[in-house]
């Protein structure tokens, strides 16, 4: 017998739709994303009773004279049936209700909500909390719920991969089955994993498992039968027993509908969806006439007839309550539904005549897809542009910006009255600036706050209010065809990105400095000092991953330099925040709660803080506001049950430690290793002593566990003479003669290399010797690459080198905030050079506290009045800069001479330095 699947008809707008039959099987009740409830008296009813219950609703169930509807305001709304009038609220939750199950023979309703609550509520008595049973143990969003016909067992399938079965009376879990595909929310679930109990005796529980349906015995949990269908490869989403318990219907995420006879495990028939759209609701007609109603995710309602291979008259379940009027053939009703007989023929007629029209209208609907609460689009859309640390635009009161400087709040964003719109700027440090209030007549929707300026913008206008005393605000209006999509500001820059992939850069006081182009649609951007970090789409998403890349643009003075730094995002995550640490290290944060930092010396993104380890609840989010590299902490707001902080009451900031994602972080060893890694890659304040301690502890740990090789290797890695001596002592104490010997060897070799260093580089400036050597090559590389910068560099170098007699002017420019800039200055160029930078930089990094120590006898302590120090009287940076400039200047002049003589710049370099030293000595002697 073949299933007669009728063409679907429009029921609700695009999105998750639910359908159920009334108890008597005569009416269909649907709900959907348009927030309406429709009561159809038969499939072909063109004028259903309809009532609005809210913005959207996810589930509807009917029992007796009541409708139970899961609405968007996190409650189960009651309505009278069939009139459809509001009749109070059954229960409230803190998150939307995902699914409900109601029994025919008992007075219980089971409700699951997105906040991982499972309630079983007794319906008959007056409603109070004593009638509500709560079940706990879920660790993910529940997808579906089922109650056994005697209300003894409760099954909930949950996005944490488990199907759990509770005993209702004892509220204890009796069985866990791993079968549900993992998902983070009901809205994102591809498969609903709707389960069902065998309706007559409740002896079986059916659940979908990929493309099979498994029925287990509810007494000993042994597998009763596995129903398969070789023709179907897509996964099943919904399973349901027929009212008589002899048949099983399953709906797949490709819209297929399969019916089995359970006893023989034979497939009765398969019907396919005309457009392979996933089904999101399915229900057998309780009359047992082999009729199935279903809905797909585009809001279409469908019906399939003749789903059982025996005439319904032979076997009618006695639990139906309608047993008296079931002794008819499949499509013959006389009393319950007077026009049912005609329905079939009418439908056929319609299908014949109006089939084309209907498909046309369907395609129309497809083209006008709207965002629905249940996006089940197969491909991941590209992430929209967003402002870091802003809350969604549809909120009436929202945060425009919340960073380390302060908070920008916007009130009445969606109000029609202009009077109510205002922007409030609150500074964390009230000694820096007082709170500001602005009237928001222009409808500004974006804001960026920095120590330099407050910048606000709407799509066509940007306005900057510099925070320095006695300065005037300024604004720029864009031509009509351009649209501002994102802004950023720092203490030196005001940047705004437009819809045609351009970024305009102005100074804080309103000089337009530059326009740059970005290689793809912008995602977000952030500024710090003279640096601008831009994230953009590099291509369409691949398998759910966002192809986001980022670039770091340096806009010091009138020059523009760029460095592509890619990005780091885990699979299927989106970018949630982008910015800089307090020391200017680029940072980004993905939507699954992982922070990445980009230390300029490493030239790679390092994952640093998994905020999910610090949350209490899987649905909690962390809203990053600032990253403090010097304190080794991330500041942000723990948001309970959401990704964004609430507006009122005012949320509190909290701090999370930055620690790398080492494995087995519970052990002492991993802790120590993680600390060593963090402290050697990041510039954390005052950790030299702690670093040494930790290193020694790690060494001791390895020694105690008889891992001599590991201990030795550790000391070699860190290569600090002081540590070597301490380690040797420790090894001696433990009577590890061999280890101690090796360590002494290491100590001597270290000393030698130190000697070598001091000998080869006679000048005592060895803090960053390799960079000095690499630097000219870099410059040459840039110059040779033949871009337009060449003349600019030359002129700049000329200028600087002429002014080298008064080098203090260059060094004083670096104020405290851009302490990191001098490093980055170097790093922006170095990656272009391939090998040299990779090998030379780690050894020359000033971040490793030990290397400073290593060179301490020579360079670290610099007393300007020290008579023995040949370099006293001038600071290290000055010399560095001079040297750098000279060498690059040399390069500029030696441009035509080829780069094969790499030693050459070095030798000239040394000469220059020597000269400089003599000059210094001279000056010094004169002064003294």
């Amino acid at each position: 017998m073949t299933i007669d699947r009728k063409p679907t008809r429009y029921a609700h707008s695009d999105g998750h739709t639910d359908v159920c039959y009334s108890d008597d099987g005569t009416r269909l009740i649907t709900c959907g994303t348009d927030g309406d409830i429709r009561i159809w008296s038969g499939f072909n009813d063109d004028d259903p009773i309809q009532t609005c219950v809210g913005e959207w609703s996810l589930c509807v169930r009917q029992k007796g004279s009541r409708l139970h509807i899961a609405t968007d305001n996190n409650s189960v709304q009651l309505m009278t049936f069939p009139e459809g009038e509001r009749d109070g609220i059954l229960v409230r939750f803190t998150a939307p209700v995902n699914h409900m199950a109601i029994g025919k023979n008992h007075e219980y309703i089971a409700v699951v909500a997105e906040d991982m609550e499972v309630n079983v509520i007794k319906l008959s008595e007056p409603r109070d909390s004593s009638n509500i049973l709560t079940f706990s143990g879920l660790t993910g969003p529940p997808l579906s719920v089922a109650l056994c016909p005697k209300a003894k067992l409760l099954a909930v399938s949950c996005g944490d991969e488990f199907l759990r079965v509770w005993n209702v009376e004892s509220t204890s879990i009796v069985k866990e089955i791993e079968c549900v595909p993992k998902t983070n929310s009901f809205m994102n679930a591809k498969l609903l994993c709707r389960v069902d109990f065998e309706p007559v005796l409740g002896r079986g529980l059916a659940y979908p498992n990929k493309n099979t349906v498994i029925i287990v015995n509810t007494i000993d949990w042994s597998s009763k039968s596995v129903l398969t269908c070789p023709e179907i490869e897509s996964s099943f989403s919904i399973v349901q027993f027929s009212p008589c318990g002899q048949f099983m219907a399953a709906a797949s995420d490709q819209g297929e509908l399969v019916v089995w006879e359970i006893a023989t495990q034979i497939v009765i028939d398969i019907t396919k969806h005309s457009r392979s759209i996933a089904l999101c609701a399915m229900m057998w007609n309780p009359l047992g006439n082999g009729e199935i109603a279903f809905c797909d995710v585009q809001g279409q309602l469908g019906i399939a007839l003749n789903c059982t291979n025996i005439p319904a008259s032979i076997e009618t379940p006695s639990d139906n309550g309608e047993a008296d009027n079931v002794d008819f053939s499949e499509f013959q009703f006389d009393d319950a539904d007077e026009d049912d007989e005609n329905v079939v023929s009418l439908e056929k007629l319609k299908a014949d005549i109006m089939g084309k029209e209907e498909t046309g209208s369907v395609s129309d609907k497809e083209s006008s897809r709207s965002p629905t609460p249940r996006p089940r689009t197969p491909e991941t859309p590209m992430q929209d542009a967003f402002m870091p640390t802003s809350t969604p635009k549809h909120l009436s009161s929202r945060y425009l910006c919340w960073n380390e400087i302060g908070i920008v709040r916007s009130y009445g964003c969606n109000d029609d009255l202009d009077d109510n719109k205002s922007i409030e700027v609150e500074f964390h440090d009230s000694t820096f600036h007082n709170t500001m209030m602005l009237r928001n007549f222009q409808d500004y929707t974006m804001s960026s706050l920095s120590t330099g300026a407050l910048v606000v913008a709407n799509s066509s206008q940007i306005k900057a209010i510099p925070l320095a005393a006695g300065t005037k605000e300024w604004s720029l209006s864009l031509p009509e065809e351009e649209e501002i999509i994102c802004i950023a500001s720092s203490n030196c820059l005001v940047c705004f990105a437009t819809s045609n992939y351009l970024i305009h850069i102005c100074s804080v006081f309103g000089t337009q400095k530059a326009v740059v182009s970005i290689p793809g649609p912008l995602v977000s951007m952030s500024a710090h000092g003279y640096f601008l970090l831009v994230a953009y789409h590099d291509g369409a998403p691949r398998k759910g991953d966002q192809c986001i890349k980022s670039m770091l643009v340096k806009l010091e003075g009138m020059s523009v330099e760029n460095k592509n730094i890619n990005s780091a995002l885990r699979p299927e995550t989106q970018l949630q925040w982008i910015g800089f640490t307090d020391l200017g290290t680029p940072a980004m944060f993905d939507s699954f709660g992982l922070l990445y930092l980009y230390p300029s010396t490493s030239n790679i993104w390092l994952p640093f803080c998994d905020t999910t380890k610090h949350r209490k609840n899987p649905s909690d989010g962390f809203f990053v506001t600032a990253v403090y590299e010097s304190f080794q902490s991330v500041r942000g707001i723990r948001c309970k049950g959401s990704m964004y902080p609430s507006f009122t009451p005012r949320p509190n900031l909290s701090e999370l430690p930055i620690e790398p994602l080492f494995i087995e972080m519970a052990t002492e060893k991993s802790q120590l290793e993680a600390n060593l890694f963090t402290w050697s890659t990041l510039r954390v304040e005052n950790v030299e002593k702690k670093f040494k301690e930790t290193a020694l502890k790690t060494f001791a740990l390895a020694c105690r566990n008889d891992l001599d090789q590991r201990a030795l290797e550790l000391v070699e890695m860190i290569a600090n003479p002081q540590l070597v001596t301490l380690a040797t002592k420790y090894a001696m104490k433990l009577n590890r003669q061999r280890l101690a010997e090796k360590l002494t060897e290491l100590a001597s070799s270290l000393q030698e290399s130190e000697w070598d260093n001091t000998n080869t580089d006679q000048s005592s400036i060895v803090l960053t010797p390799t960079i000095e050597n690499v630097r000219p090559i870099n410059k040459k590389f840039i110059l040779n690459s033949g871009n337009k910068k060449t003349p600019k560099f030359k002129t700049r170098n000329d200028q600087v080198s002429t002014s080298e007699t008064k080098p203090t002017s260059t060094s004083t420019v670096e104020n405290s905030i851009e302490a990191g800039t001098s490093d980055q200055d170097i790093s922006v160029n170095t990656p272009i050079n391939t090998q040299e930078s990779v090998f030379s930089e780690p050894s020359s990094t000033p971040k490793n506290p030990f290397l400073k120590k290593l060179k301490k006898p020579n360079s670290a302590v610099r007393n300007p009045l020290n008579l023995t120090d040949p370099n006293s009287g001038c600071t290290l940076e000055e010399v560095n800069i001079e040297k750098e400039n000279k060498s690059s200047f040399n390069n500029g002049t030696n441009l035509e001479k080829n780069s094969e003589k790499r030693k050459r710049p070095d030798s000239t370099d040394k000469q220059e330095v020597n000269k400089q030293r003599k000059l210094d000595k001279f000056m010094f002697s004169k002064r003294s």
Partner: protein
Amino acid sequence: MNPDEVEFLAEKQLISIIPTFNSNVIHLISGDVGPFRASLPVRVPLWMAINLKQQRKCKIQPPDWMNIEQLEELKEEEKRSKTFVKMPSEHYMIEAKLLLNYATDDISRADEIRTIIKDIWDIRMSKIRSSVDTLVRNAGFYATVDHLTLMEINTMRPLLPHALDQVYRMKKAQSTRLPTQSTTLSLLNSSHRGSSLSS
């Protein structure tokens, strides 16, 4: 001990504030406070919180128990129970008084909280009075009272021991008067002297 001293003790309680300034650790005799980082919550003694609040350098985060629901519940319990209910804080009255005086803008529904706390205080005070009354009337020798806060004890302090003392003296006088008239006087005198010395 007078109420000021009790208040002084209460001001050592720690409370969480959100500073709006940056500062390093402040070293105090009783311990270090800080470091203060703008907008990050930090725990400081109450006196410092009030002082900073007066300088408008911080926002005070009211203690967890200082919300309408919890206090209402407490009040109901206090009403129902014959004995004293344990208060969420040893110095609830002083904390509430200080915070509600100086940091009204940081506490939501401050007026209602003020009323409820005053109610709780009144209920407890009337309990104390009635229990003292029964103690004296029934001539009980001792009474156990749990969960009284320092301030509440302090209100009874000037009166109750003195009154009991007097009662004791009278009783003693009464009992010693019975045997003989002659000894009574001397005993009374001696007891009087003794008690006056002791008091």
